């Protein structure tokens, strides 16, 4: 592809990226504000109850808090000031959950736990799924194929939170092999010691396993489909006729053509995993952003909810953009298209 053409392509993708992000975020903002509920008055009432203290000039205090939370003025003013704060100052605003800690601090504190177990589990599921899918596709029409493929089809129908619930039921309550909740045992001291790491791994096993069990089947199904379609291509027949060895055929001709589209899928799912699977965290009381989200909703903590949603929208779209930009550089077929 010509350089100018490539630049135009990248510019177009970047523009779509920015527009989609703005639209998605605006829809999210207005939808959340449409929900009836007055979190500030509730927040002030909670303070009164907690400290058994009668606030005299309630209205003024409510107004002052509204100012802090960016909830004063009409919707449009709120929207503009919020967007300015988030996109120019990278500040999500104070949280209700843990006032006056800013929402972003609350989120950053939980994020490593989520990225840790969600990221690792998604990657593991991807590797296992691609390997199994290629194998099954390669052996298409055999008993192994039909057995594994039917298993994958059935498994892919089970909702992720049910898988998590059943795993808790079997491994935590019936067998007692793994702990049912939290990220590490209360008896160990957090830090870089073996005991802590072992405890973290043990606690992450069940949440990660439920994520892997949910994701592997869909990777197997899509990889098998790709493999079978590649096996039907003329160039593969030609290579076979030339006498290219099986291992080389599988590595150079099949796997290479599978990896590219499946990498796109991986980028997509790394983004979606955040908002798709946060109930798994809640089921295991895992201290990630999923659990934080479930805690933020009952108090209608706008800044925290929006912050988490923004991060998840940002991840999905950025992953897409990166793939869109890298694709023509890697795949010669797209280079001419633009």
């Amino acid at each position, binding site marked *: 592809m010509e350089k100018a053409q490539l630049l135009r392509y990248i510019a177009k993708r970047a523009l*779509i990226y920015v*527009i*989609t992000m703005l*639209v*998605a975020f605006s*829809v*999210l903002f207005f*939808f*959340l504000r449409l*929900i*009836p*509920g007055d979190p500030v008055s509730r927040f002030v009432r909670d303070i009164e109850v907690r400290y058994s203290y009668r606030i005299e000039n309630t209205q003024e205090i409510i107004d002052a808090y509204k100012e802090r939370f960016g909830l004063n003025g009409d919707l449009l003013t709120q929207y503009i000031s919020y967007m300015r704060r988030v996109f120019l100052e990278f500040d999500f605003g104070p949280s209700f959950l843990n006032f006056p800690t800013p929402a972003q601090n609350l989120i950053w504190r939980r994020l490593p736990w989520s990225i840790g177990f969600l990221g690792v589990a998604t990657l593991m599921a991807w590797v296992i799924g691609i390997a199994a899918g290629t194998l099954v596709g390669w052996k*298409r029409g055999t008993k192994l194929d039909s057995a594994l493929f039917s298993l994958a*089809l*059935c498994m892919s*129908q*089970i*909702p992720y*939170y*049910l898988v998590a*619930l*059943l795993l*808790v*039921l079997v491994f935590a*309550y*019936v067998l007692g092999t793994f702990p049912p909740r939290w990220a590490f045992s209360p008896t160990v001291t957090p830090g870089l010691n073996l005991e802590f790491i072992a405890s973290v791994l043990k606690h992450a096993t069940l949440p990660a396993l439920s994520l892997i069990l949910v994701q592997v089947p869909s990777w197997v199904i899509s990889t098998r*489909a*790709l493999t*079978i*379609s590649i096996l*039907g291509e003329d160039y593969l027949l030609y290579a076979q006729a030339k006498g290219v060895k099986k291992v080389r055929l599988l590595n150079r001709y099949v796997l290479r053509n599978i990896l590219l589209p499946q990498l796109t899928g991986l980028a997509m799912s790394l*983004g979606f995993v*955040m*908002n*798709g699977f*946060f*109930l798994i965290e*809640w089921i295991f009381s895992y201290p990630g952003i999923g659990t934080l*989200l*479930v805690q933020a*909703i*009952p108090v*209608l903590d706008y800044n925290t*909810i929006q912050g*988490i*949603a923004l991060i*998840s*929208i940002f991840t*999905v*779209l950025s992953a897409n953009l990166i793939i869109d930009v890298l694709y023509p550089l890697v795949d010669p077929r797209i280079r001419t298209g633009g």
Partner: protein
Amino acid sequence: MSQTFKKGTFLSRLRSEFLTVLKSSPVFRVGFVLLIIVFFLAIFEPAINDFRLDGHPSTKFGVYEKLLPFSAEHPFGTDHFGRDTLAIQITGLKFSLMIGLTAGGMATLIAVFMAVVAGFVGGKVDAILNAMTNAVLVIPTLPILIAMAAYMRMNLWLISLTLAIFSWPWAARTIRAQILSLKEMGYVELAEMTGLNKFEIMFTEILPNLIPFIGVGFSMATIGAILAETGLRVIGLGPAELPSLGMLLNWAMTFGVMAQGYHILVIGPAAFLVLIFISFNLVNTGVEEIFNPRLKKITGI
């Protein structure tokens, strides 16, 4: 796509298309039988429960002794509220399906409207609607649903509408792609040449051929809605007067019956949910195989 071009009235076409799929796809046959079982249980839920419980409503507390073991009278025992477990789970299935179908229907209406307008007007309108679709697609929907369910008094229509607002984009994309490819078909060009206007072409030539895809979109949206609804109910939100399977799971979890060993209270609703998902999905796969030959080549079933 040869199966899709059939002559005759709308209904007879629909029937012959259905028979084609039924004859040629074993996946569809299995799914269809399971779907009949699901619908049978849901539709005849009042009769079945009346017969089994001597007229006691399945949701009434304390009719029987609490947490009875399995017996002939109570095949799944009773729960911690003193209700027949099997009966309340069939009731749950009914409500899950009811909410799912209502939401799925609403979502399909939105999707068809968006896709038809985008696919037919084209140009800038298409670009704008497409951007909307893609934006809604990346919004994390469950958090918004949870927030709405937590703050609004939900009934069947409101919860279905809320679910529908976020489950239309996938169906809209599929249907739009199909309209774009149908527009290029020879017979649409022919119809244009004979002087039919866009509107007539849409309703006489294109919409009938979209039916299988609208059907697939509907059942996908229904599954999506049930999935999201169950997610809401598992964490304890949503209308209490519609005890769906998700709500049963929430009851089981919050009362800690899992830790006490009454596993059927979790496994039962889970099994019914999986039955719903598998039946809808198999029917979908079957229909797609027939009407999307490229897919058939790829899945190779």
